[in-house]
């Protein structure tokens, strides 16, 4: 199997720094901002963005965790269902600017599920999307507001975002699963 490194640790870090600035620029500061990390990769990226925003503005914006499994659109058709992990949103999202954070944007179905879930926690003023990688192949009319890197891919390729918190090192690799 072929493995290709497409982003190293420094590149990931620079992308996140830029995204943090872009979030602040677009939202004119930190007022009402809430970071929502989508399990599993998005959770660590949301924590890193929280730290970066703190370094820039000196404010710790709230960050929370969303597991979208209960909202998936393939639960009834899938032969095997995924395990349900905890959602931890300990505050109302009413009138907040929610920044959804995920590692890879692909079909857009995860983000559709995430938006449905968020609206059950109140009525956010806006929902924005930050992703480290946009690999294309959208099946729904969804696009990201903040993108680390656009990575046009073949459908059979597997894109893995490895993070220190998850598997010991920061890198993005493309594997040919054919």
């Amino acid at each position, binding site marked *: 199997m072929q493995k290709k490194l497409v982003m190293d640790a420094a590149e990931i870090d620079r992308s996140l720094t830029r995204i943090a600035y872009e979030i602040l620029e677009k939202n004119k500061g930190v007022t009402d901002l809430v970071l929502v990390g989508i399990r599993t990769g998005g959770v660590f990226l949301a924590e890193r963005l929280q730290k970066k925003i703190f370094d820039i503005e000196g404010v710790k914006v709230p960050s929370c965790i969303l597991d979208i499994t*209960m909202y998936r659109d393939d*639960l*009834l058709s899938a*032969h095997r269902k995924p*395990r*349900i992990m905890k959602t931890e949103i300990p505050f109302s999202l009413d009138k907040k600017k929610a920044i959804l954070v995920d590692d890879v944007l692909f079909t857009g179905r995860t983000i559709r599920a995430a938006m449905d879930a968020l609206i059950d926690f109140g009525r956010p003023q806006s929902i924005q999307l930050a992703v480290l990688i946009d690999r294309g192949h959208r099946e729904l009319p969804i696009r990201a507001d903040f993108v680390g890197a656009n990575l046009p891919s073949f459908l059979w390729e597997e894109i893995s975002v490895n993070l220190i918190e998850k598997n010991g090192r920061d890198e993005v690799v493309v594997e040919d699963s054919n």
Partner: protein
Amino acid sequence: MKWERKDLLGIKDLSGEEISLILDTAESFLEVSTRDIKKVPTLRGKTIINFFVEASTRTRTSFEIAGKRLSADTINISASTSSLVKGETLADTARNLEAMNPDVIVIRHSCAGAPHMLARLVRQSIINAGDGAHEHPTQALLDMMTIRSRKGTLSGLNVTIVGDIAHSRVARSNIYGLNKMGAHLTVAGPATMMPRDIRELGVKVSFRLEEALQDADVVMMLRIQTEREQRSVFPSLREYSAFYCLNGDNIQRARPDVLVMHPGPVNRGVEISPEIADGANSVILEQVTNGVAVRMALLYLLTGAIE
């Protein structure tokens, strides 16, 4: 850990890993009940029949709420309003229910083994909500969930179960489950309420409440089933309560952070004194809250295999 089961008939045939998966899943579902909008679309389009041939409020309501919070359609049938009163056999009723294509049938029946028979008969998932004096698996699971969330673990805990062990499906399911999870079990009650094979279940047996409470981390008081105790297993309720009622004095023998549990409905002053049932160590209502989450987890797990 893979989940491959179609039915949940008892704790006896579950593995420790399966129990842990159910409890983990239940903990994830717990949060849904704390939201303003207590509903997720997970089981949209699924139909659940609650078929209660024996009286119940807690368990039936809990299953119904669990199904509704997952967006499933839930239908309740009770014995008095079903065709059983017209003489239809349980098997025929079940086949007719099957013909309406539900996805899950939850059954409570006064005969041990009724859910097992249905599981062989129909293709739907069957959940045992209590069969005679045999098992009450969802109660044991919510009890284990409550203990685990309070104590962090089940392994190594001293758990004491007090009451009519012989006729309690709650006790039986808890004994199977807690044993698998590594707890140390003691059961206590009058000799007339001990099943003959009790020692084979891997528990310590005591006939004195004070002795059984020594160093307990958890004490589960069972309800004296006044509707079943027409036989003379004890002289009077008053005498039973004089020897086996958990109160402010005898509880001192247990660990200071002992959890007091009861599956409900509580006979205040018979098996447990009101100040203990409502006291700081009591988690009786937490058990009820966790019950909804456990049932949500089971409905989710049984309606599709888990990878």
